[in-house]
């Protein structure tokens, strides 16, 4: 198996037609992973033996006539998802020795659908970062240029799909952590509606924003995998009980009569001119496909980054209070007393960016500051959410850039947190409003990929995937493979 850009759809077909077995396929991917690890650092844990065993079981199930659409297709999980009996680090020294006692619901759902887990993917520590440079296990590198960041926090997921060392990967998105790395690595990313996919077993960062999703080669692949990840889970109190359609059934629907909104605030002075041209070119493709385009305005959207940097740290400071050096995770040597145990275990176990966000959150939630920061931010969040609701009265979906620029150099933005935070300026709004969002490849600037962002109303995943798929039938940006990994 040497074809460089196979999709989940094509691999599933190959398995069904007996062109190769799951064991052969899995072995081929494990070889590609091992070969790419020194240059990309995309994996934290490779579960080769378990993968080959699961692949053999998948082949046996197929031989017994019990194969589903995804039986035997290898995938990898972001290391934020708990996987029973397997190291689950969340990119942190704090969980450097944590072996999960159970599976996340989406992990068991994708296993039940027949997928084979290849391993656990590198990520920014506790999903806090936009460049994958905050990982305790070292930065992931962008396969298009290994001097560049892959984006974050799902940098391992995006880089590994881009380098075709995994066919597809799970990921999570709190402020853009699926869409931004997907854009910077030239792959397809989907962040579903808040509550669409269970978060049971997904290590919490900011609970009113976090959502599980996927990074894939194509929208069709995302449609195939999203079903088994979706649906009501009584173990997640934020899971929404809403029917799960067959996302593949409507991929080919016509776009005649679709109204696409261009958010004026997404085309601001921060947007690189060459990137803007690629976005305009993509919009022209949609006009050719019969969509109408109109400009809409979300006047409060420019406040989404400061809003996020109050809400997300506040929630993170509460969520990460559980890491106390007592029940699991890192514990300091010879603590003098309980307070010393807490403070040193946490001081040593967390990296610089995680500590920065915990302290930011602690401050905004402390007495005297709560109204000025936290309540104020939650009010602005309401305004941003209302802006989107108004926009969706005038159009079906919003499109625009995913990021203001292509990938930047490793180390370029490490010293200034604000510059780093502004990478997510176009993606954070969807999280604040709980909306689904996608990023799909739409061209290159100076040899680096650019992403087109699609944002829809709540639970419009099927329509978004349809809109992304129709674009991918007209273009082949999503099939481009970095030459070093072809």
């Amino acid at each position: 198996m040497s074809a460089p850009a196979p999709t989940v759809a094509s691999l599933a077909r190959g398995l069904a037609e007996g062109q190769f077995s799951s064991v052969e396929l899995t072995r081929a991917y494990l070889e590609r992973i091992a070969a790419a690890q020194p240059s990309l650092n995309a994996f934290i844990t490779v579960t080769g033996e378990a993968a080959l065993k699961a692949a053999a079981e998948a082949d046996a199930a197929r031989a017994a006539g019990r194969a589903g659409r995804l039986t035997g297709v290898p995938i990898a999980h972001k290391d934020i998802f708990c996987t029973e009996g397997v190291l689950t680090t969340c990119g942190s020294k704090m969980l450097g020795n944590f072996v999960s006692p159970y599976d996340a619901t989406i992990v068991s759902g994708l296993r039940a659908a027949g997928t084979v887990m290849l391993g656990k993917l590198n990520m920014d520590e506790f999903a806090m970062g936009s460049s994958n440079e905050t990982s305790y296990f070292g930065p992931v590198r962008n396969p298009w240029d290994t001097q560049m960041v892959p984006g974050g926090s799902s940098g391992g997921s995006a880089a590994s799909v881009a380098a075709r060392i995994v066919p597809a990967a799970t990921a999570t998105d709190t402020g853009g952590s699926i869409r931004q790395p997907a854009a910077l690595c030239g792959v397809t990313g989907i962040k579903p509606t808040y509550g669409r996919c269970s978060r049971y077993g997904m290590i919490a960062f900011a609970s009113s924003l976090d959502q599980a999703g996927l990074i894939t080669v194509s929208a069709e692949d995302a449609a195939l995998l999203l079903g088994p990840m979706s649906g009501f889970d009584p173990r997640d109190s934020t899971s929404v009980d809403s029917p799960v359609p067959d996302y593949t059934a409507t991929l080919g629907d016509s776009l005649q009569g679709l109204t696409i909104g261009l958010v004026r605030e997404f085309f601001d002075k921060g947007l690189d001119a060459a990137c803007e041209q690629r976005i305009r070119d993509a919009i022209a493709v949609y006009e050719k496909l019969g969509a109408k385009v109109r400009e809409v305005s979300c006047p409060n959207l420019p406040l989404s980054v400061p809003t996020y940097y109050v809400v997300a740290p506040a929630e993170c400071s509460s969520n990460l209070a559980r890491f106390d050096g007592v029940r699991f995770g890192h514990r300091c040597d010879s603590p003098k007393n309980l307070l010393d145990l807490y403070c040193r275990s946490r001081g040593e176990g967390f990296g610089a960016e995680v500590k920065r966000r915990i302290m930011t959150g602690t401050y905004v939630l402390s007495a005297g500051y709560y109204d000025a920061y936290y309540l104020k931010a939650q009010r602005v969040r309401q305004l941003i959410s209302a802006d989107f609701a108004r926009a969706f009265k005038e159009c079906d979906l919003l499109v625009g850039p995913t990021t203001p620029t292509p990938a930047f150099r490793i180390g370029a933005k490490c010293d200034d947190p604000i510059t780093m935070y502004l990478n997510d300026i176009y993606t954070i709004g969807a999280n604040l409003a709980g909306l689904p969002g996608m990023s799909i490849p739409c061209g290159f600037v100076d040899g680096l990929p650019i992403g087109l962002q699609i944002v829809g109303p709540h639970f419009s995943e099927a329509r978004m995937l349809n809109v992304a798929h129709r674009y991918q039938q007209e273009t082949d940006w999503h099939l481009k493979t970095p030459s070093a990994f072809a």
Partner: protein
Amino acid sequence: MIPGPAKAGFRRFCRASYRPPNMSLTRADIENIARLARLELTETEIPVYVDSLSKIFAFVGELDRAPTAGTDPMAHPMPGLAQRLRVDEVTEANRRETYQHNAPKVEAGLYLVPKVIE
């Protein structure tokens, strides 16, 4: 009970150190925040956080300009939905031994910490 500052002292700290957004934080502020967050910082870390948290609070100070009069704080990202509650019933089996495999120090089924009561 977590050892730490007495409640009255904590309130005094919050009142005394209150200042409107946009102002720079001091070394003492960072030390207090770190203590509340149960984070030990090294000498080299403190000035880094004085600088970066000051920048972050200056940046989020932009929110002051937002016209939020008469707008309720958003309590849930999905309009019209509230946090779902469940019946208070035992649904999980006892898996203490499995869970304690990840604990740094256990004995006889108990999690060990330094002596709390002298």
